[in-house]
């Protein structure tokens, strides 16, 4: 990308699917995901890089998508919360969040799930301290974090039962 311009062509692989779009240089990655691609699972909380609700994984690195410009991710592989469930079945981590009541309002959950996904890839058996350190960039105003830490700990131990969620069991879209 040699030319300076206010808009750029960007090709990325989002959740395994290759997409190309023309983006404004000033567009934040979180807006590219939500508004341009319609992937509204990624939430905007503070829009200042503090709350972590917009966390996604770009080329294997956990980042806050409100702190990155869309043209910066050209050529990258992006994973959002939509990548976690497969064919309507929650991932073990999502199952564990469900079982341990690790969310109340759910607003922070997409970011928490992506931070926990990244953490467990780096460190498959984290201590509670390591879990808390891993989600330090994610703010939750409901739970007090205890159930989130439990959910991540149990998921890391493979102790989520692997039951399909109640929604999936009932044949609903999840």
């Amino acid at each position, binding site marked *: *990308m*040699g030319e300076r311009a*206010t808009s750029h062509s960007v090709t990325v692989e989002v959740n395994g699917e290759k997409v190309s779009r023309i983006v404004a*240089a*000033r567009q934040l990655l979180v807006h590219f995901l939500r508004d341009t691609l319609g992937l509204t699972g990624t939430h905007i909380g503070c829009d200042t*890089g503090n709350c972590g609700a917009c966390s996604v994984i770009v080329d294997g690195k*956990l980042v806050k998508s409100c702190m990155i*410009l869309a043209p910066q991710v*050209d050529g990258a592989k992006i994973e959002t919360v939509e990548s976690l469930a497969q064919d309507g079945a929650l991932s073990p981590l999502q199952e564990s969040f469900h079982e341990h009541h690790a969310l109340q309002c759910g607003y922070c959950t997409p970011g928490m799930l992506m931070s926990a996904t990244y953490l467990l890839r780096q460190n498959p058996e984290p201590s509670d301290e390591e879990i808390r350190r891993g989600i330090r*960039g994610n703010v939750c105003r409901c739970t007090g974090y205890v159930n989130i830490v439990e959910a991540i700990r149990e998921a890391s131990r493979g102790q989520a039962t692997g039951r399909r969620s109640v929604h999936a069991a009932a044949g609903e879209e999840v």
Partner: protein
Amino acid sequence: MLLEQVEYVRPESVGDALEILASDDGAAPLAGGQSLVNVLKNRVASVDVLVDISRLAELSSIVRTADGGLSIGACVTYDALDRSPEVRESHWLLGDVAAHIEDQQIRNKGTIGGNCCLSDPTNNLPPVLVALDAVMELRSRTGERSVPAADFFKGYFATALEPGELLVSITVPPMPERSGAGYASLAVAADAKALVRAAARVTLDEGGATIADSRLVLARVAHVPVRDADAEARLKGADATEEAVRVACSGVADGMQPIADVHGTSEYRRQMAKVMARRAVAQAIAAARGSRNGSTAGGK
């Protein structure tokens, strides 16, 4: 949030980046963006063109220098510093301070160069780099120059960088024999900005009983990290004991006028500067005696 209209360019080389930076006063290098993007959101700075240097391989490596020091590219992230075997082997403290900056997301993007070039007085790395006698390697279209870290930080959000100049790497000399580094930081809450900080590097004499040389750098007592020359003079030749260090650090920050705000008065910060200095020096002594070449305590 919608940013002001801005151009973006991703040059293929440092040379190309320098051309663009030299050709336009409104050009700004974009590295990790973890401060710059917020600056753009708040529209407190007007930028014509963002020059994305984050993918330039030349700026992203950590290299062991011939003398045993480190050459750290400006775009090396905090996470890369934390995980670098080279950094941990010779300058453990630098990796440890980087490991405690903010959170994983920010450590994955934020860079050592950005941390320094922003020159935010609350940033962690500047006092550490001053204590380690680091040298900032600057390059422009017309040449290169080396600026000691102690002379690089000029004030609130101000550095020695001239228009068109880019920080390309930071050279950290090898730790002298029998040396260790320490760092202590005081914040009122885990996520709060630090009230006062101290970074120290201590070299012990051959017997290990007295202090042969030291660097004691305070942060947040002034606009930029400052060496406390008086305290360094008192530490020289002092016994490497808790009591001797306490005495040597008793005058730390005297005569300085740290800012006062809702989190602490100027006097409180002055007093706490003595405590942080004492702890940083004590850790540096312990590190010099132990296997680690630096240790840390306190929050970020």
